[in-house]
């Protein structure tokens, strides 16, 4: 009944009728919430709300620096740094910024953050609220790698892409798993398309619910895919700790190169990263 009281309070002028509609909608939504079986993955394990200006919290995040092997395995064009020009926390957001600049033999710079060795966990709910950059050849991602990757090379270690995005497809994100026998072009993937909206004009929540026998992918309040051991044509490797990565790549086989119309710099804004168990 609290919702009703709220309605009463808000109806104080001519646009009360509009509020009424909103309130009634709220009543309906919350009522159905009560009836829904909500996931039990609601115990917060780690969170970064990015509320301290400066460099990201080094208790949680470290960096991949450079160009990796063959552009991090994907022919990516950027040189990753941990300079403040490429990664910083400002006004409550983590900013990962891709720049067009000549740097150590690369034409672009950007950043890739990871929790390897600092936070690794099997199972749980992983989500981040992100406003994405845009344009041809822009490739941001929020993803995870198996923590044993140094001794169990990719794709054996497993990869869960909670969110990948092609800057030239501003309404579409992808959620994917890679493992032995189902990696790269054969990965298990599904896209989610926003209706009458796009991912680079506002914040959206990207998440997975990961349990021993499934990985659920969701955007905001929409669950759009579930992948189970039955869906993968190989070993199910999602039964051990993984670590989290946030990065903004430029170019590479997944997106193609930027073109003359791609606007730089491009910034991926992360409002928070939260992990529950």
């Amino acid at each position: 009944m609290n919702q009703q009281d709220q309605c009463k309070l808000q109806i104080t002028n001519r646009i009360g009728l509009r509020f009424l509609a909103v309130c009634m909608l709220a009543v309906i939504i919350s009522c159905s919430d009560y009836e829904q079986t909500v996931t039990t993955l609601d115990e917060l394990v780690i969170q970064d709300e990015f509320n301290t200006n400066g460099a990201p919290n080094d208790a949680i995040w470290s960096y991949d620096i450079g160009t990796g092997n063959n552009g991090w395995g994907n022919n990516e064009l950027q040189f990753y740094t941990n300079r403040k020009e490429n990664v910083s926390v400002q006004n409550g957001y983590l900013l990962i910024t891709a720049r067009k600049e000549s740097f150590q033999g690369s034409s672009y710079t950007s950043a890739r953050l990871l929790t390897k060795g600092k936070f690794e966990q099997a199972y749980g709910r992983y989500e981040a609220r992100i406003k994405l950059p845009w344009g041809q050849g822009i490739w941001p991602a929020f993803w995870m790698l198996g923590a044993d990757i140094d001794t169990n090379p990719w794709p054996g270690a497993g990869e869960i892409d909670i969110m990948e995005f092609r800057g030239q497809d501003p309404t579409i994100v992808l959620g994917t798993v890679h493992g032995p026998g189902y990696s790269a072009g054969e990965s298990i993937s599904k896209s989610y398309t926003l209706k009458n909206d796009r991912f680079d004009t506002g914040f959206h929540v990207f998440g997975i619910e990961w349990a021993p026998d499934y990985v659920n992918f969701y955007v905001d309040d929409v669950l759009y895919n579930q992948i189970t051991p039955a869906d993968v044509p190989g070993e199910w490797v999602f039964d051990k700790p993984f670590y989290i990565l946030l990065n903004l790549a430029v170019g590479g086989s997944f997106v193609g190169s930027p073109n003359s119309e791609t606007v730089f710099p491009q910034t991926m804004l992360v409002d928070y990263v939260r992990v529950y168990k």
Partner: protein
Amino acid sequence: MKSIKIISVRIALLGFISIMLSNCERNLSGDVEFAKFPSNPEVFIDGFSGGLEYFPFGGSKPDAFSVDTDIRYSGTAAMRFDVPNVGDPAGAFAGAIFPDNGGRDLSGYDALTFWAKATQAATINEIGFGNDFGENKFMVTLNNMQISTAWTKYTIPIPDASQLVAERGMFWYAEGPENGNGYSFWIDDLKFERLGTVAQPRPAIFFGEDEVIETFVGTTINMTGLTQTFNLASGLNQTVSVSPAYFTFKSSDVDVARVNENGVISIVGRGTAEITAVLAGVRAQGSLTIQSLGAFVAAPTPTRNAANVISVFSDAYTNIPVDFYNGFFAPFQTTLGGADLTIGGDHIIRYTELNFVATEFKNPTINVSQMTHFHVDIQIPESIDPGDFISIELGDFGANAAFGGGDDSSGRVTFTNTALTRNTWISLDIPLAQFGLTSRNNLAQIFFISDATISTLLVDNMYFYK
């Protein structure tokens, strides 16, 4: 849930009524809503939407438009446009406006969309909305829209929908023959939409360039290259040409230059001012820096008897027919400008980025064999350094009165830096003999040459006399 709803409605009505009552005793509250124009988004779905009219452009093929019930994207009919062949006596092109003269409130939409196809791949010259045969205040044009034989959906973004609260121009187009040949195209499901995916606005003025111009008090300059670019859901960056009224213009010094809402810059004082613009809160790329040299001093008015003069360019005499004042010879020529400066009714030629430039008058050539001198007034509004020079060259096309043919002759007279003074009219009277021409019966060209040592040159009163 039902009972909650009913209670809430009663509460709402009570609140509503009490507010209305209290308002009666006061002035208009901020909640007053003014009468709105209808917000019907449909232009042509299977027929004319309510209020829609059809007016072809003058000179266009008046029956180029028809309603086709056979070929259509969906529903029962589509708009068909038959572009005429070159030479069609009915009209040289297809073009029309489709206004709703009652006006519509389009502020809730972000694009005009339609499906289209054609009998052949083609490029439609202009297509858009906001043309009402009136002020065309909020006109938007998609230039060179490529169309194919497959039905394709097109999106023409609205630069700033908040401006379109009483818009009349629902749709317009203009298209000529392709390589001389007519063809047909169809448009269906033409309507305004709120796509929610028209984003990342990047307005521009002067095509996004930072331009600099030297000029004088009393001149006016039109804003050009006004565009708005949006990124669409498809990833396409769609640029449209937009009218000045969508922008808010700003002058950094209104004592030097002012811009009105039609994008006309007036130079009102001496000094420097930068013109910038904002569209719907977004700073437009591009600017114009005006360096106003102050009051313009006109070149001395010629006083020679018109009977003894053959004039090429002067407000004091009747001029011969001139083909051009800047025949741009790519790729060697850099010179911009021409006879496009008017100050207080005085026409002046202004060249910028000068290396060389020609005025040509070969239709017909002129006979200056009876003349003794060439006169010209020049002004150089920049510093004159050692090595700077201006050469004036005359070209005669010879007996065949045409370029080439082995009978042409030309000759030049050069003025070096010591003969030149900055920011003042320099009146030159050059004996024709100094040019060393073999013939002066078929004169056709006057060149100014600086090899980029002098960049900006004003020219007035070019004539031959005796």
